[in-house]
């Protein structure tokens, strides 16, 4: 019964969606107009911000407020998870007969861990030059911590310093935004010189913000993973 009803509804929905999408004038003709943001970003984004990756300049400056919100959402998820899992009485460590990882895996993890972290750092530092950026880099770093968890369970993430990193990174983000308000004209404005194109030192505040985002996202996701793994029912 339920299956029938949902099938009928979904068929209507999908037909409507596909039909409407087919009818809609999507595609290239839409951003040709110069007052459309997309075209503007492509034409002038590089000159204004100095970031070769236009997506990055959009993410960090033009739509930087979205990014702030997005970082906030991850932050919410991290502390929300902490709040949900909080229990006053310390649950005694309840060990299901846990299989420890094989030596190969442990060694491999330990060997790879710094490399992956380095890679994550690379991704977010080069966010304005190549694909990737704060989130991707942060996720890679968090994944490195996840790997550490999976491989060698004796390694613990120092939650306190993670929190500090998270907090500091968030404050730096907001602070750069406010600095833009102070030295420039608007929140999150690019107030540093934009540097030479295609070089590491270009893009004004973008690398700085991306470093902050990278640290923040990495710390938050690592915190989330740690919270999930360390939950003992």
């Amino acid at each position, binding site marked *: 019964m339920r299956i029938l009803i949902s099938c009928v*509804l979904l068929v209507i929905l999908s037909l*409507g969606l596909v039909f409407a999408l087919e009818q809609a004038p999507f595609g290239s003709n839409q951003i040709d107009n110069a007052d459309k943001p997309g075209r503007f970003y492509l034409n002038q984004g590089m000159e204004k911000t100095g970031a070769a990756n236009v997506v990055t300049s959009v993410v960090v400056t033009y739509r930087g407020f979205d990014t702030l919100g997005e970082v906030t959402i991850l932050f919410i998820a991290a502390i929300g998870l902490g709040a949900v899992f909080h229990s006053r009485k310390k649950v005694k460590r309840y060990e299901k007969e846990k299989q420890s990882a094989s030596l190969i895996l442990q060694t491999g993890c330990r060997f790879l861990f710094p490399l992956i972290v380095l890679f994550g750092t690379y991704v977010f530092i080069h966010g304005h030059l190549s694909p990737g950026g704060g989130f991707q880099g942060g996720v890679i770093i968090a994944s490195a911590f996840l790997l550490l968890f999976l491989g060698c369970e004796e390694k613990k993430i120092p939650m306190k310093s993670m929190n500090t990193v998270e907090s500091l990174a968030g404050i730096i983000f907001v602070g750069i935004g406010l600095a833009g308000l102070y030295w420039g004209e608007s929140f999150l404005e690019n107030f540093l010189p934009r540097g030479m194109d295609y070089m590491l030192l270009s893009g004004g505040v973008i690398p700085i913000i991306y470093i902050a985002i990278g640290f923040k996202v990495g710390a938050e996701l690592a915190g989330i993973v740690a919270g999930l793994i360390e939950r003992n029912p």
Partner: protein
Amino acid sequence: MTLGLLLIVAFGGALLVYLPGKISSKLRDVWAVLVALAVLLGTATFYGKSVHDALSYQFLGLPLVLRTNDLSWFFAIAISGVGSFSIIFSLSYIKNRERTDFYYSLMLLINASMLGIVFAGDLLSFYVFWEIMSWATFLLISYNRGNALPAGMKYIVMSMTGSAAYLVAALSLYAKYSTLTFSAISTQITTASPGFTSFILILGFMVFGIKNALVPFHTWLPDAHSEAPSPFSAVLSGILIKMGTYGFILFLYVLVGFHQFSQLAWKAVSLQSVLCWLGAITIVIPTFIALMQDDAKRLLAWHSIGQIGYIILGIAYGTSLGVAGGAFHVLNHATFKALLFLCVGAVEYRTGGVRDLNSLGGLMRRMPITFIGALIGAFGIIGMPLTNGFVSKWLIYKTLILNQDPFLAFAALLGTWGTLLSFYKFLHNIFLGQLPEKYKDLKKAPTSMQIPILLYSGIIVLFGVLPGIPLKIIAGFVTSFGLTPLNVNLWGIVSETGTLNTINLSMAVVSAFFAAWVVFAFSRRSVPTTAQDTYAAGASIPRDKYQYSVEFYNPLYRMMGRYLRDVVDEFYGWLARVTQMTGEIVRRLYTGDARDYVLYIVLIVAASIGLKIWWPT
């Protein structure tokens, strides 16, 4: 003294009761009485004046108007009078109960809001005061706990329905005329279409019918009256429900105008005749239901409905005599019903909350003042000459007879018979007959209770003998409605077919009493026996059967009791149950299964798409 100031005193006094109440209860009592009397005095100063104040304070950009004229003053004085008497009565009645600050505050608040209603000069301020009155009344009805709670619920639900209807009516008027003041509306509404006028009037009937306990809307009243604290029952029955009457007069005569009203008809049925017949039904059926009641306050409550029928009948009839009768009956009913409730309250106070007619009896000697009060009140409600009830009923009968409406007249008469019968029962079962053993040591009612009782009795007799005093004011506003002017003198009223002269009547009645007394004094006396002497032929009798007043009108009850069910009440009960059940069913929508909820979301999107496909516009 302006109206605004008066209302501020009234409301302020009501809200500030808590302050002296925090200090001492004595101070609080004094404060309450002082406020009530101040309001009474203040109201009295407006006698004969006609004021129309547009306030500088505006609500939501709408001007508020306070106004007074004969009509308002007439009601206002009744309100503040009944109010202050009840406050005085409460002094001892409420003394040992909890939350007395609350009680006084609400009593004063209700008085103040009723004053506001009658002084209001526009529909908005009317509504504001009306609503304040409604919720304050609700709180006070519920004051007694227990059975009072469902009574309060019934009251407030019906009252809210009414105020909703009022709001629709008022704002429809606003939408049409962009004003809410009475004067502006009344000048403009003459051009309205009959449909619109009847829409407004039907809504108005609903609103005021509910407050007035007109028959299809009466069901809240018996419960509410009987369960409220007695001094408040007096206010409730005496004056609060008359706010509905005021509203009727307002809508029929002030806003719409009687001429326009009488022409509203659908085929052969005119709105006026419907209203008259509703009044007649309201007289007869509740009166006979009252006959069956064993609870003193309930009995009085049902009679309130019956008396309201007279008022509505008089007002809806629309001759100047009828309106005068109805309006006068408002005042009269206020006095004698308040008096009766206060008497019951006194009895209740002394017997510890007993008001079951079957278990009382013979209190005449223990509480003589109360008895006299009850007697005069009963005379008043029956319409005995020498009491004011007689005058107003006479006016109404006269109207009916003059206009050759035998059925209505018969209905009114039937109502009087019923009243007579039931008040015989009432008096007998409480004050006459045998005194149960446990009430042997009953004391007299406290002074603070006796004062209002005596005052009311005095007023009843005074107005019965000198009806010209109130009738003069009534004649004033009746004339202003555009009806034929009334010719009033101190002793009565002069109409085209005859004159009411209370002097003659009084002489007749006094002589009749004298004759009766002579017969009574010289005939053989009956011997009082105690309840324990009842012969029971050795069988054990249930304890309550010792009283021979049990099941007073048993044969009558057996004869027609089954037809006297309150069908309307059952209907409302059914409605409430249906609502509840609907709720129970509708709640099943929230199945608790998250997938269903997602289904709803998808459903509404799909339904919108489907609608768009089928209904392309």
